[in-house]
């Protein structure tokens, strides 16, 4: 193989791999504070880029991306508050989230399409509001807040289905993409003979910023340290006056936010479709496990490894099977070294499941 082609493969592998790493870090952040694997992690990327794509049609790109990330962060918080925390009190956030979720059904299914827009809206509100209130009552009265692993797995799977379906109904099944951040589809930069799109540099740059930023956050800020303390020992953390519940919400917000950002920078390259979240999630999980669940440095290394491996695999095996590579790696790692390549301290934690 010629050296510039090899370089080409490596670069495209690193690009893809850095996205996997971001997804894996998203898994890790939530896993560290809660012990939950959030099966809906991939959906955050898709949601972020979908929102950005819609906003970019009338806003400057940078602003669209910024708002999309903030919005997704809020969605992350809302999802945690509604579905994970299981509050037994009346919660405005939950009512609003539920209302919006239900509102979509009559609105997007065109139940009242014959009416003028305003009437349509009013009818939908009239339908959604009492239902949301009813469900809120159910929450107040009946929600069970014991957390066992099987239950959490199923809830986050449910969330991922729900997000996917909401995205299908809000947007549709078409492939969409954000415009290239600099240049366009055909512009390319020559790096030692390998031609790459400038967007690749954006992906690499943003990923690096996310990784470094998170590291600094966890090492040097009080909140970051508090979150780490939760991962170490929840009871001890709460005795130290750390509000563990809000740390959990915060962890969902951060993973949603970085997920959305990653989704936006890759959108021009990979395009965005409502149902790509689950593939991303399983690859991200493979990377998270490969790097040692909870270990974010490990996730970066593992992500890059998987990306490069996939890039080279394209040259030797049918395209259709590529998707399976990461899963085979995941299975192999799970069987032989579930603590991952770089995680040994986590090994003990495995037993708690």
């Amino acid at each position, binding site marked *: 193989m010629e050296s510039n082609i090899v370089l080409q493969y490596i670069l495209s592998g690193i690009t893809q791999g850095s996205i996997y790493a971001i997804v894996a870090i998203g898994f890790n952040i939530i896993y560290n504070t809660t012990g939950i694997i959030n099966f809906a992690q991939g959906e955050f990327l898709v949601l972020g880029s979908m929102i950005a794509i819609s906003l970019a049609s009338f806003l400057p790109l940078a602003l669209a991306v910024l708002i999309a990330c903030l919005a997704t962060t809020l969605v992350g918080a809302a999802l945690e508050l509604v579905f994970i925390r299981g509050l037994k009190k009346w919660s405005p956030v939950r009512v609003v989230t539920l209302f919006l979720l239900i509102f979509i059904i009559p609105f997007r299914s065109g139940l009242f399409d014959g009416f003028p827009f305003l009437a349509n809206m009013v009818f939908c509100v009239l339908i959604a509001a009492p239902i949301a209130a009813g469900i809120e009552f159910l929450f107040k009265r009946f929600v*069970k807040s014991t957390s066992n692993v099987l239950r959490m797995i199923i809830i986050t799977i449910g*969330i991922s289905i729900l997000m996917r379906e909401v995205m299908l109904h809000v947007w549709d099944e078409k492939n969409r993409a954000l415009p290239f951040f600099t240049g366009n589809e055909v512009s390319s930069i020559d790096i030692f003979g390998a031609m790459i799109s400038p967007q690749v540099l954006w992906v690499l740059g943003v990923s690096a910023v996310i990784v470094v930023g998170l590291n600094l956050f966890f090492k040097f800020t009080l909140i970051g340290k508090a979150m780490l303390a939760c991962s170490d020992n929840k009871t001890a953390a709460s005795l130290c006056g750390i509000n563990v519940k809000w740390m959990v919400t915060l962890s969902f917000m951060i993973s949603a936010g970085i997920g959305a950002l990653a989704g936006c920078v890759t959108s021009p390259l990979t395009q965005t479709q409502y149902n790509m979240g689950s593939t991303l999630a399983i690859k991200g999980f493979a990377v998270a496990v490969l790097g040692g669940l909870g270990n974010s440095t490990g996730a970066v290394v593992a992500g890059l490894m998987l990306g490069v491996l996939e890039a080279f695999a394209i040259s030797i095996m049918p395209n259709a099977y590529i998707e399976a590579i990461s899963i085979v790696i995941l299975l192999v790692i799970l069987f032989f070294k579930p603590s991952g390549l770089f995680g040994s301290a986590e090994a003990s934690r495995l037993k708690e499941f």
Partner: protein
Amino acid sequence: MLARYKPLLIVLGIVVLIQLLLSLGGWEFFFTQLIMSAYYSLVVIGLTLLMGYAGQISLGHAGFFAIGGYTSALLTTIDLSGLWDKGTLSLLSSLFITMEQKDPYGNIIYSFSPWVAFVVAILIAVGVAFLIGIPVLRLKGHYLAMATLGFGIIIQTVLLGTTALGAADGISNVPDFTLVPGIQITDRMADRVMNYYIAWFFVLLGLFLIINLLNSRVGRALRSIHGNEEAANSLGINTSRYKLYTFVLSAVLAAAGGVFLTHYLGSIGPSEAGVIKSVRYVAIVAVGGMDNLFGTLLMGNLLNFLSLRGYFGTFDEAVFGIILIGIMLFAPKGILRIKGIKYLSSFIREKLAVFKREKEK
């Protein structure tokens, strides 16, 4: 001793009742969906055994369903004329190993007979279940969930990427399955009622086996594993072996469902192996109450029937997502154990008992 089979009789009674109702009422078009959901029930009851009683989650059971369906579809549509000469083929046909049939263009071809295909499909499912189960069942919690999910995705990826298996189109023109002469799995309108009973016969057979298992030494061992694996182990129960056997059994039931449904519909596509399908099975088991065989049977058929009739419209997947979350948040023990329903059923039971007592007087 026969008390354990009483629920089977009740199920049979309901099945017959529904048939009479539909036939007399002229709603025969419902049979198609009832037959399909019966075959899906085979997956569901197997998964109930695995999840509810042995306590192991699987997000990959659609994979086994597809393994069954695809194996049988491939073997019964493959043209063997190139492999053996005509004499051998007609000899094999008289031994019921191969079968003569017309391909879509009207040419005569020889393929394996459905029974052979069925046996091969089950054997492959058993083999794959062992192969996957031995390493996977060492895992717990999220790891087990992700590993089984991965298994399902691999199956679907392979199906989508292999042209011999029809890639995205799947395999169609799968012949009818003649179980014994005169009784065949087919979607012919005239044989709808018969097929309804065939399908439910297989479900009852599956239930019969599982009830036997649950009421035995092995069933107790399984439930004890769910209760406390370490304690079960210290009583001499080889927990990993029992988990494995249960996994294999549930895989066999799923594969059998796949074989039958494929022959019934005459085709199978890669979506049958999809993650969505696997998640759906898990949702049904959760709604039914995990360790409640008849609860999952009831809810499974209800949901599958509604879904197959298209009553959920474009919100089909969303409905299952909502069900998953709702059940886990509000009624982790299944919908049939929600207080209101429990009161209602105990109320009915009480009244019945009173009624019985008075009758005896």
